[in-house]
């Protein structure tokens, strides 16, 4: 009881901070996040620049404020797509089994076998670059893992007596799947979603790195982190703040989820 509350409170605080920074970032940043300043290149923490500056002398705080919004948007929507379709697929295949299961799972295998980068490349070439397409292609790459987890839980639950009773009470397949069985998969699904959120933040960074994600000079936390790698020795702080912010963001969400989870 107490632990749950603690998780919830801590999670809300961290998430609150992230959301606040993000929302404020939409309307106000201390500096123009793309404005360069030769004099301040890689300068450390100072009063004027509390998070220091990057290799172009851009204010890291401002970039983090702008970038976290992008990151959050991409990560949340990616996970939403992945979870939504993953749950849908996993539920259908696990619940009905048989040929449908065989065929759909093989399709999922196919998607899973494709390196997400190739997948992303294909989508970006089909749809053109841009945030939305990054979300779509990453989201698709995320589907298989959710589908598999949900599927195995559905296989476990579908033979339970309560499922049979629900059928007798007149519940349709859809209702049985999503109202009766789905809540029983929560204990496995929630950690998976948190992991997914995490991976999405990082995958977005990876894609930006390949040039198919967020385009410079726009900031996203992942992109900032990968830009900072080169300076890991000379300006460790450059990597530190976006990094910490990712951790705070992910941590906040997972604590919140943990706190909300009932069992």
């Amino acid at each position: 009881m107490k632990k749950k509350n603690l998780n919830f409170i801590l999670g809300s605080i961290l998430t609150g901070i992230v959301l606040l920074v993000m929302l404020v970032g939409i309307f106000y940043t201390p500096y123009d996040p793309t404005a360069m300043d030769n004099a301040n290149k890689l300068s450390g923490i100072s009063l004027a620049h509390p998070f220091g500056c990057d290799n172009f002398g851009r204010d890291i705080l401002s970039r983090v404020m702008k970038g976290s919004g992008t990151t959050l948007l991409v990560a949340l929507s990616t996970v939403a797509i992945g979870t939504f379709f993953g749950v849908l697929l996993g539920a259908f295949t696990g619940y009905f089994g048989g040929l449908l299961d065989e065929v759909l799972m093989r399709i999922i295998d196919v998607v899973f076998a494709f390196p997400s980068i190739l997948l992303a490349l294909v989508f970006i070439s089909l749809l053109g670059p841009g945030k939305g397409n990054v979300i779509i292609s990453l989201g698709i790459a995320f589907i298989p893992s959710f589908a598999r987890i949900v599927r195995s839980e559905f296989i476990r639950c579908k033979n339970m007596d309560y499922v049979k009773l629900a059928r007798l009470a007149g519940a349709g397949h859809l209702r049985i799947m999503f109202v009766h069985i789905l809540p029983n998969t929560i204990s496995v699904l929630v950690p998976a979603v948190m992991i997914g959120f995490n991976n999405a933040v990082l995958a977005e960074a990876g894609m930006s790195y390949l040039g198919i994600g967020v385009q410079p000079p726009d900031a996203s936390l992942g992109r900032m982190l990968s830009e900072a790698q080169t300076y890991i020795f000379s300006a460790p702080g450059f990597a530190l703040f976006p990094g910490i912010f990712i951790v705070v963001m992910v941590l906040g969400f997972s604590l919140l989820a943990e706190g909300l989870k009932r069992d």
Partner: protein
Amino acid sequence: MENTQTNNILMVKDLRVSYSQEAGSVFRPKKDLDVLKGVSFSIREGEVMGLVGESGCGKSTLSKALLGLIPKYEGVIVQKSEHPQMIFQDPFSSLNPAKKVGWILEEPLRLNTGLNRAEREKKVSEMLRRVGLEEKLAQRYPRQLSGGQRQRVCIAESLMLSPKLLIADEPVSALDVTIQAQIIALLRSIQKEMGLAILFISHDMRVVYQLSQRVMIMKDGEIVESGDVEQVYFHPEHPYTKKLLEAAGILEEGD
């Protein structure tokens, strides 16, 4: 046997079910286990049919087969009720662990009636009361209930829709006698009021006697004797029936 087909709510002809045991190891090759070996009977509308039998003789299998919950069977099952209900022998796995008792009980109403939330809740607390449970239990998860409480929740769930056919697999086994009596009375009154037909599986010979009009005695996947309760209880023919009645101490009572 029966030719009054018109008012049969359930009719079963030559039902056979076998479980295929998966090979456990190289040394125990796969073999089939015949559980029901040709069962035929029928239940009329509004009638309570008792089913008594040896433990492991196939009663639960029969009850599941009747409602199509066993994928593979041979024989004919004709079932004419709109929402046949079932009370499983195992009250724990019949209750969705992720939902509260209140939600579980509301579900049949939600699905089949246009009642609004308040009305549903009212019906639920009424039903809880009728099966002898406190209303506050609606707020609990199944694992927070005692065995008998779970069983009563299952009974309540099966009665929510006023079904025409109820298959009850040992519904009162975990209840103490006072509550048992209360549940029996409840079932009787519902049966009278709404013409509910029940296949009542129990090993408590007395309870079966009190509730049923007819009774079947089952052993080893076959029905060895059936007929009116009085007939079977006081003039048993099959040795197993006699043995049962003897063990229950009914024969002495009757004599």
